[in-house]
Every structure is written in C-alpha cells, then in structure tokens.
C-alpha cells in the first residue's frame, strides 16, 4: 500500500487511551476515538462529560494524564507549531482583544499562518462575508455582541483553511438565523476538512453531522455514523397527540402505557405522549386499545423514526441536553 493511500485513508483524529485527571477527578477515562478525514463529527455528552477537556487536549491547550492522540498526522503534546498550523479552534466562550477591529483580528490570524499581501486581504474579506461580519469589520471587537463574537470566532478558525476544525459549542450564542447560517457553513465543510464539533444541541448534530460520539462521565459510550447508531440503539417510538382539554384521561392513558409490558419509557412532552416501545408487534396490537380504554381522543397516533435524542437518553440514561435550546 502506498504512503499516499495510507495518508488518504488514515483518520484525521485518533486518540488512544486518552485520560485526564484533575486531582481526584477523572475527567476523561481511556478515550479511544477515530474520526475519519473529511467527516463532520458531533461530540455529544451531558455537562461535565469531558467534551471540552477532550477538545482542549486535542488542540494542544491541555495535557493528557495518559494516552496519546494524533491530529492531522501530528502527535498531540509534542510542542512546536506543527499541530496549530493544521487546525482551527473555536473556544466555548470565544474571547478576543477588544481593542482590535474584526478585520484586524482576522488579519492578525492570517499573518500567524503565513498569509500576506493581497492573498491575506482577499481571504479576510471572504471570511468576513462568510460569517456575516462584513459591515462590522471596522468596529472594535469590544463593542460586539456575544453572537458577533461567536461569528468572528468561527471566522478566525476557518481562515487558514485548516485540515481539522475544532468547534466547542459553535452556535450556542447565535440567534436562529445565525445558527442556521453557521450550521450550513459547518455542514458544507464536510469532505474538504474534518470538523470536530462539541454541542449540546442534538438537532444541530442531526442536521449537519455524519458521525457522532457520545461521552458520559469521561467515557466513550458509543460512536459511529448517525444512521448506524439509530439502527443499532434506537427502539421504535409511538407519538400520541391528544386533543386538548383531557388532562385526566391523558394521565390515565400515560399510567396504563407505563405498566404495559411492551413499553420501556413514556415521556410527556408539551401535552404529547412519546412512548419508547420494546415490542413493536405487541404495541401495534394493544396500543390503540389502551387509548380507547382511557377514553382519550387523539389528533394523531403515529409510529415515528427515533431521533438522536432518543438514542442519547437510552445510552446516557440521564437528562438529555435540550434538543433545541442553548445549554
């Protein structure tokens, strides 16, 4: 096998037994990870799972207590500038020099990566346009809103066209429009760069990522392509949408569903019942009978495709991150 082929098929990010201790606290427990080159990788987990710790180690800001990692062909923790020259990094709460303007900051970043002259100024213009800050480019960053700072953060990470882009909660401070734009941008990078994105927003992950890893208490719970995870872990879901004004009857139905042998979990979400089913055939036979017995009038009764949130809940067993809202 030629070395070129090896390079093309080698994972962009590889971690072996990555461990991090903060005193007595085990923040990361023997993490093994292989992120294929060109993928948009979602890194999920509840608060304190170790996501940011992982990102900081992989970006060269923190040190692993044990284990090793290779990013874009460079061993992490070796010192020097080789790793930084191949990555873009966006912090969870990006902070920049308030006295600089947005354009000055991007120019500064471009120079750090060796850009100069017209190549630098045209790249800065392009990035400002891409992240929607062209109009604010000459304003001091100190006067930027949180959302503008986050857009600038995405811009500075993208500017050098990195082989690997680390994004820690890249859309957490953005309004819906900004979120849509940045996610579209992140999604479009697939195939050209490897994106490693940590987020609490599961819908965003489903929208743009092709692969995910779920981390809990510093341990990798599962990883793989989203469709594969859904096929592997997700159980059928029934959604029951009752007509309004039947609170007692709906409570009766929820109770009956909870004790049924073919259900695993019944969640009440915004007046709707979401039932995780363990036996689809039994559910098909008995589900509607329970509805009728409880006297509930339904606007909708549907078997739906399980979501990443369902998989997350099943695997982590904790409260899921809000699928929509900012954590």
């Amino acid at each position, binding site marked *: 096998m030629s070395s070129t082929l090896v390079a093309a098929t080698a994972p962009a990010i590889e971690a072996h037994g990555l461990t991090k201790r903060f005193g007595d606290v085990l923040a990361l427990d023997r993490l093994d990870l292989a992120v294929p080159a060109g993928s948009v990788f979602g890194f999920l987990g509840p608060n304190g799972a170790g996501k940011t710790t992982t990102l*900081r180690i992989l970006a*060269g800001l923190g040190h692993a207590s044990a284990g090793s990692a290779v990013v874009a062909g460079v061993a992490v923790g070796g010192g020097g*500038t080789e790793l*930084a020259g191949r990555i*873009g990094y966006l912090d969870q709460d990006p902070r920049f020099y308030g*006295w600089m303007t947005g354009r000055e900051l991007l120019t500064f970043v471009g120079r*750090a990566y060796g850009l100069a002259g017209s190549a630098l100024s045209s790249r800065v213009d392009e990035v400002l346009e891409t992240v929607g800050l062209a109009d604010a480019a000459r304003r001091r960053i100190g006067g930027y809103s949180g959302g503008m700072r986050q857009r600038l953060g995405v811009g500075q990470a993208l500017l050098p066209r990195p082989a690997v882009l680390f994004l820690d909660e890249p859309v957490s401070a953005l309004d819906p429009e900004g979120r849509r734009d940045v996610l579209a941008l992140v999604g479009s990078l697939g195939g050209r760069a490897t994106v490693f994105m940590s987020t609490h927003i599961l819908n965003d992950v489903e929208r743009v990522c092709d692969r995910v890893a779920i981390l809990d208490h510093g341990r990798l719970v599962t990883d793989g392509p989203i469709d594969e995870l859904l096929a592997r872990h997700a159980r059928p879901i029934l959604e029951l949408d009752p007509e309004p004004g039947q609170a007692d009857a709906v409570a009766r139905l929820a109770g009956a569903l909870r004790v049924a042998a073919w259900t695993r979990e019944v969640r009440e979400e915004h007046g709707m019942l979401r039932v995780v089913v363990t036996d689809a055939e039994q559910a098909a036979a008995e589900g509607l009978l329970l509805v009728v017995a409880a006297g509930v009038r339904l606007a909708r009764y549907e078997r739906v495709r399980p979501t990443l949130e369902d998989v997350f809940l099943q695997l982590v067993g904790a409260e899921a991150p809000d699928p929509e809202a900012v954590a």
Partner: protein
Amino acid sequence: MTGFGLLLRKEIREQVRTMRLPVVVAVFAMLGLISPVFARYIREIVEAVGGGQFQGMIPAPVVGDALAQFTKNIGQFGVLIAILVTMGSVAAEKERGTAAFLLTKPITRGAFVGAKALAIGALLAIATAVAGALCWVYTALLFEPLPLAGFSAAVALTWLSLAVVAALTFLASVATRSSLVAGGVAFGAFVAAGILAALPGVGAYMPTSLWGAAGLLAQGTVPDLLVGPIVANVAFVIAAIGLAWWTFRGQEI
C-alpha cells in the same frame, strides 16, 4: 520563537490603543518633572505654609536633593506602576481566554512570553528615559547641569531596578491565573527585597540598592561596588524571564 515579531507588534499596538503607553509615559514624565521642582521649592513651600515657624530650619536645597527626590519618586510610584502594568500581562490573558485563542495558532509559547517581556521592558525604558530627560532639564534649570554620561547611566540603573520588579511580577503573572495574586506576590517580594537591602553584604545586590549607586553616578562619582550589583540584577531579570518561559511551556491553558 515562531510568531515573535507578529506578537511584539501586537503588544506595542495594544499598549498604544489601550492608552497604556501614553498614560505610563505621562505619569513618569510628571515624576521626572516634579522631582527637581519639589526639591528646589520645598523649603519655600514649608516656610510659607508654616508662617515663619520653620524659618531657617530646612537647609538650602542642593542638586543632590533633586536626584534623591527622583529616585524616591521612581522607587515609590515607578515600582507601583511597573507592578500594575505587568501583573495582568499573562494572567489576564489566561483569565479572559485570549491566551487560548493565541496558542492554538502557529505561535510558540516562547514567542508569547518573549514578546510580552520585551514589550514591558521597552515600555518601562521609554517611560524612564522621558522621566530622566525631564528631570535632567529641570535640574539644570533650577540647580546646575549634571554630567550627561553619568546621569544617563543613572537613568539606566533606575530602569534596571524597575526591570527587576517587572520581571518578578511577570513570573508571578505566568505562574498564576489571577492578576491580583500576581500583583500581590510581586509586591510582597519587592518589600522583602527592600528588607534584605538593609543586610550587610547581600543588601548591595538588591534592586533598591541600585538607586543609591544611580545617585552617585548622576553626580559624576563612580560607586565602589557597581559591576557586581548590575550583573546580579541583570542575571535576575534573565533568570526570572527564563523561569517564566519554562513554567509557561508546560502549562495548561
């Protein structure tokens, strides 16, 4: 030291844009200016305020008083300013998160530390030079012109004493994540150095002892013990910055 030039330019622009450079230079200029003025007119001021009560009690001012006032002012306010401008240099960048932004770029940690140390040294050098120049001019106007070479050497020694304080503060700023802690540690160490300066033998090598040597040099007298204290203080500055780099090299950001 990849990125050193880029970071040094950034540090200097930051000093100008955030008004740190103009403000520090202005304060030092004021210290340089008022030192000879204060020395020259203190007797008149006290006698005027005292309504004749202190008539003849204060001796007529001499050029040495202007120099003593200058080193006293730099020793109090200059040291405080050196601590204030240095204590947040690295700690604040770590606190705010801008260090994480910088260190994920192809910039070495050595360049980060070196550019900051050099920029602070240059800031204090400019400020001390301006203060010294104004002090020399006003001393010449109000007393007599001092030998220029000796006075320049005295100003350089004064800068060296401030550089020692700044280097110590810089090390504390690298070692901690809090500007206040860094400032407190540096101030405590400076007070300790002041106490050590009273000890025979070791005292002559403390940064505060450089002021006495500066006073003699300014008046054209070469002190008996000069090279040793200079070498010791320069070595301290280099060691402190080297230790800061070594500490920062393996630090979690």
